């Protein structure tokens, strides 16, 4: 951030007062001041970030326990590349379903980022439509996960056993992907609720209510987006550690 950016940030605050320092000095000044540390960040956004931090620890612990199980077992770990292969056109394509799921989720993150953009431009229709597309991508992802679970369960995978090797594979798989799928499902519901409010124009009128800012801000779209991108972020780690490792 350069000085010109700083002055455009808060015209009212910088008019008579001393500008807040940037960089490390700014970090120290923000945290040591007898004020709220997150300065320009609204409570809604700060609280979503703090919730996501707590969620990071939850998923971190899941992946850690999976790592511990996999490293400490003396039985061979199943090869995910083969376990998650699909039989297409007479040959087994490794991990193909997971690859498609990854692309679906990344695309949903793209449409979500654009929804946030149009939200701040107060373009009601484009924001709502983009959020709806994001929700459809999310629902597609959950549907494919249901297919993946069904296939594995029909092949004998259980939280306590599986036909391909170490029993801990089953418990790790259902725990980690199940918890992530739950997050995606909650995200889809969250998206649909906010998209409906955007469509109705609640944020233009400043209508009070559940998930509705009092001042008529579109910031809730960005906060919803933070949650959604986080779900995508978690999948990046699951994809790397569980499916590829």
């Amino acid at each position, binding site marked *: 951030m350069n000085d010109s950016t700083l002055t455009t940030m808060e015209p009212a605050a910088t008019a008579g007062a001393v500008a807040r320092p940037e960089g490390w000095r700014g970090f120290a000044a923000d945290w040591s001041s007898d004020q709220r540390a997150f*300065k320009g960040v609204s409570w809604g956004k700060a609280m979503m970030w703090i919730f996501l931090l707590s969620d990071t620890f939850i998923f971190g612990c899941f992946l850690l326990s999976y790592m511990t199980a996999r490293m400490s077992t003396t039985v061979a770990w199943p090869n995910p590349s083969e376990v998650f292969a699909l039989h297409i056109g007479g040959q087994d394509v490794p991990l193909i379903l997971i690859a498609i799921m990854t692309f679906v989720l990344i695309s949903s993150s793209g449409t979500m980022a654009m929804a946030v953009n149009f939200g701040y431009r107060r373009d009601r229709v484009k924001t709502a439509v983009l959020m709806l597309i994001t929700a459809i991508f999310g629902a597609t992802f959950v549907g494919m996960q249901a297919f993946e679970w069904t296939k594995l369960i029909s092949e004998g995978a259980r939280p306590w056993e599986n036909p391909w090797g170490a029993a801990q594979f089953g418990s790790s798989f259902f725990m980690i992907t199940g918890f992530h799928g739950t997050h995606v499902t909650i995200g889809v519901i969250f998206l649909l609720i906010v998209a409906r409010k955007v469509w109705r124009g609640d944020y233009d009128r400043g209508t009070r209510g559940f998930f509705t800012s009092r001042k008529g801000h579109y910031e809730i779209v960005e906060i919803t987006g933070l949650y959604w991108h986080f779900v995508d972020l978690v999948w990046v780690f699951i994809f790397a550690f569980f499916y590829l490792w």
Partner: protein
Amino acid sequence: MATAHATTGHDTPADAAAGHAEGQQHPIKLYMVVWGWLFILSAASYAVDYFHVQGYLRWTLILIFMTLKAGLIVAVFMHMAWERLALSYAILVPPVLVLVFVAMMVIESEYTHWLRVFFFAGGG
């Protein structure tokens, strides 16, 4: 960041109506570029598995692609690149400390593995 300047959430609707940039406003093109890179990096991750890359090269590539993807999502899609450091450090530093936990559990699981091999060779 000269091209995309971020303002904070202080603006009132009146400000926005007056043409004042509100919230995290960045060019759509930037999102498209990041979106494209996420596709490329995911395809590269998948290629690592598809072409049966094994050993340290496999793990290195997986970690590099994973870190780049995670970084792009957090920095651009979640706008962390434009937040004040007070928020960025509060959110980004604690997860890094999880690596200490990882190191502890690696030692723990190697010990457990050794116990199992030593006392229950061939068992679970």
